[in-house]
């Protein structure tokens, strides 16, 4: 409510409006009929008597008894005719009077109605005017508010725009930074790749050389290994007394552990043949070798732990 503080510029129009209302109110107070019916002035020359048919008949009956003489009768008839005409004329006149009156009355009511309507119209007009003014006022206020709102929005937009500008600026800077970094990284990566390629090539060359050497070694080793495998086979086969009556495909596997000197650390049956005597003969043979023929140096590792598969053929 306090929001509707009257703007000083509205004071004058409001005062005028009130004054105008008062004037109208005054006028209306004097002219208003206040419902008190004024006596209707009936014209003196009209004295209407209510004549009904019965009355006429009675009257006629009262007049019946004298025997009419034809002249008289005629006269009377004439008279009667004349009187009837007169009566009709009066009736007519009365009716006209009444009609006149009714018309006047009607006219008056219409006038009143017209005035009333006019008044209503006036009032409506005033109301409309007032409404219009209020509407105008409201619109103005609305307009003003909208204006304010617009301004606010403009201000906000401006702010947002500035912020956006700032953000874009920052982004741009960040992007530039990122790009710079990426470029740096790419440069470094390229450098690294080049280094790695060089390294890989070097390694490859080394590996190749190593492989060549290894192959030579391997060949040597393989020959050496084969030689020692043969020696061990011989040593075992000389000592292995193959049991008789062994079922075909009888196999036993032993695991042999040696010292670098070729001395036996342990013999262990890792897969039994299922024939205890066969297993025993194998264990005994492997244990019977006092010193296994083994290579010196790195190749010994192959012989540190190995398996002996006893697999007689026939």
């Amino acid at each position: 409510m306090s929001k509707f503080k009257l703007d000083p510029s509205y004071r004058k129009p409001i005062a005028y409006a009130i004054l105008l209302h008062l004037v109208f109110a005054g006028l209306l107070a004097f002219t208003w009929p206040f419902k008190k019916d004024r006596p209707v002035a009936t014209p003196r020359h009209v004295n209407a008597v209510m004549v009904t048919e019965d009355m006429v008949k009675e009257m006629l009956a009262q007049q019946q008894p004298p025997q009419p003489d034809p002249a008289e009768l005629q006269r009377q008839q004439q008279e009667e005719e004349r009187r009837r005409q007169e009566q009709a004329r009066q009736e007519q006149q009365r009716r006209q009077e009444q009609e006149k009156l009714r018309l006047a009355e009607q006219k008056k009511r219409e006038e009143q109605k017209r005035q009333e309507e006019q008044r209503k119209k006036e009032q409506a007009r005033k109301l409309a005017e007032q409404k219009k003014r209020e509407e105008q006022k409201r619109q103005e206020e609305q307009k003003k508010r909208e204006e304010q709102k617009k301004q606010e929005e403009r201000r906000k937009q401006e702010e947002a725009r500035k912020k956006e500008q700032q953000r874009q600026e920052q982004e741009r800077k960040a992007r530039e930074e990122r790009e710079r970094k990426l470029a740096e990284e790419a440069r470094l990566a390229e450098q690294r790749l080049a280094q790695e390629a060089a390294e890989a090539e070097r390694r490859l060359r080394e590996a190749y050389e190593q492989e060549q050497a290894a192959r030579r070694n391997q060949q040597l080793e393989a020959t050496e290994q084969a030689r020692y495998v043969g020696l061990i086979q011989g040593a075992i086969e000389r000592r292995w007394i193959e049991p008789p009556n062994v079922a075909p495909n009888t196999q036993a596997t032993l695991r042999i552990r040696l010292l670098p000197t070729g001395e036996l650390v342990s013999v262990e049956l890792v897969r039994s043949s299922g024939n205890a005597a066969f297993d025993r003969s194998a264990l005994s043979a492997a244990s019977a070798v006092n010193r296994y023929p083994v290579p010196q140096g790195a190749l010994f590792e192959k012989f540190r732990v190995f398996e002996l598969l006893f697999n007689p053929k026939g």
Partner: protein
Amino acid sequence: MIDWKGFRMVHVKPTWLLIVLLGMLAMVPARAELVIEITQGSREAIPVAIVPFANRTGNALPEDIAKIVSDDLQRTGQFNPLDRGRMLSLPSSSTEVFFRDWRMLGQRYLLIGSIDPAGPGRYQVRAELYDVNTSERIFGEVVSGSERSLRDLAHLVSDSVYEALTGVRGVFSTKIAYVTLHKGAKGASRYQLEVADADGRNANVILTSEQPIMSPSWSPDGRQLAYVSFEGRRPSIYIQEIASGRRTKLTNFQGLNSAPTWSPDGRSLAMALSKDGNAEIYIMDIQTKKLERITNHWAIDTEPAWSPDGRTLVFTSDRGGGPQIYKVDLAGSRKETRLTFEGNYNARPRFSPDGKKLYFVHQRSGAFRMASMELQSGELTILSDTGLDESPSVAPNGSMLIYGTSKGGQGVLAVIAVETGAKFLLPSRQGEVREPAWSPFLN
């Protein structure tokens, strides 16, 4: 911060995990060892030191247990017992054993033991076998018996050693039956049916006759012998219970009554009879004495022998001109098939216990020799090098073959170790010895 999204991405199905794990496991042995394959060993006799068993009985004993074991093993050809004179020590318990000494002597196994008293007249033999190279005890066992059974106890130890080192059940506790002939001063003959230990010792005479005794055959339970005796002037087949001496005359047909052999189920005897004309093979139900004729041929059919499964008979027939070996399928068609084609003379067949081989007498270059034939391949091997070999009989473990041969004009018994080819003669006795039959396992 942990990036759980990243973790979800490496989520792996358990199946895959398992496969990977298995793969890794499979790779473990793959990187493993060098495998050296040994495809042949020597067939030399196993060097074994059999130390004289310590006598703790306080008495002088009639038998040398270690010597009996040593002889048993040596005869197989599969063992080479150490000469006692070379032993550096004579241990009888594990604490006295220095394996290095035995290793130095090149021994593989060491048998030690003792004989202890076990009540009045009874002894206990304790034996332990060691692996010299691994220093492990292979077995220790205790057997006991009377003084008279010391040889049996020794043979039991031999069986244990043999089985431990060859994987095959020993036959040292089995028996042999054979026939001896003693010629008297005035030309009178005395035939004897004897049963002895497998080493030829401990002989017991179970029948004496002035007329020939032939073809002893063991019942599968080792309690009875079937044989042919001419004691009634003509041949008859008898069954005799060894323990009681109770005997039953089974056949007394016209003509030939010969070569009884016991079926593996012990219920029947296969034999050769000539009651219907010439010699044919018959099977007799021992209980009912009902005969079933198996062969019907104008030629001589004789010397039947059962396959170990009892479904086949092999026999000798001269239907091909000379004696050859045939077989007849008892279960099926009764079709007779010739098995031997090499040489002019193949006779007296016997199956190996695994049913894969036949042993028989084979004549080559005028000499009669022991031969074996692989039934599947038909491959024939000559086993003996003597000249008048007869009546092969196979030990129940299949490792040895006993047969009759001739030495110095005398019939003697010889044994061939089938695997090693080792041969030995059983101790010579007075007179002729012939027609040996090896018993089944008796214990």
